[in-house]
């Protein structure tokens, strides 16, 4: 099981799922209409490191974070 966290303005509780890569996570989240709208503009971190490939392998216990567009300052 991996854990998915939605940060900032995404009004969604975190959830857990079975996944061996980000590809699996992408497919699962795309089926949720509410989340799907955010996917185009969100960055993704695995265990608090930003990642850039869907092939990123996942292990049980990993934390995946979705980071929507930012505006600090």
């Amino acid at each position: 099981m991996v854990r998915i966290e939605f940060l900032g303005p995404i009004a969604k509780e975190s959830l857990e799922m079975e996944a061996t890569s980000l590809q699996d996570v992408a497919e699962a989240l795309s089926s949720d209409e509410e989340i799907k709208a955010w996917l185009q503009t969100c960055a993704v971190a695995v265990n608090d490191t930003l990642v850039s490939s869907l092939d990123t392998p996942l292990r049980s216990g990993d934390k995946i974070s979705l980071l929507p567009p930012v505006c600090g300052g």
Partner: protein
Amino acid sequence: MLELYDNALDVPEILRRWYGSEAQNNYGAFIPFVGTVRDEAGIEGLSFDIYEPILERWFASWQTRVKAQGALVKMAHAKGDVGIHESSYIAAVFSAKRRVALTLIDAFVEDFKASAPIWKYDLKQGERYYAKERSTPIEGSGLLGAVE
């Protein structure tokens, strides 16, 4: 030196402390950037969410980068609500030479705006409204949206 505060920053106190802490360290230039909430668009203030683990990594990578140039960065940011004409953000660079400091404060503040995991909300009638139009997708965003 990354400092997070609940609500508005005490700007004179932070600047006094940062200046004092480096006063004997032979930096010739100190440039703080102070961001203040403007009275605009009928807001009562702004509110901020911060994801601290990634902010800390982002900040640490900057500290390493500027250290290679003999410089130092400091940053303070507010969490939660900050009223109009109060300050939410201070960044600062210390370096031996002015040219390095002027270049770094610009690069640091711009990368902060583009990359730091902080979300801004307008406060109107006590409610938070995500400042979507003023927000920037972090570089590499959309990864999970590439799947059909």
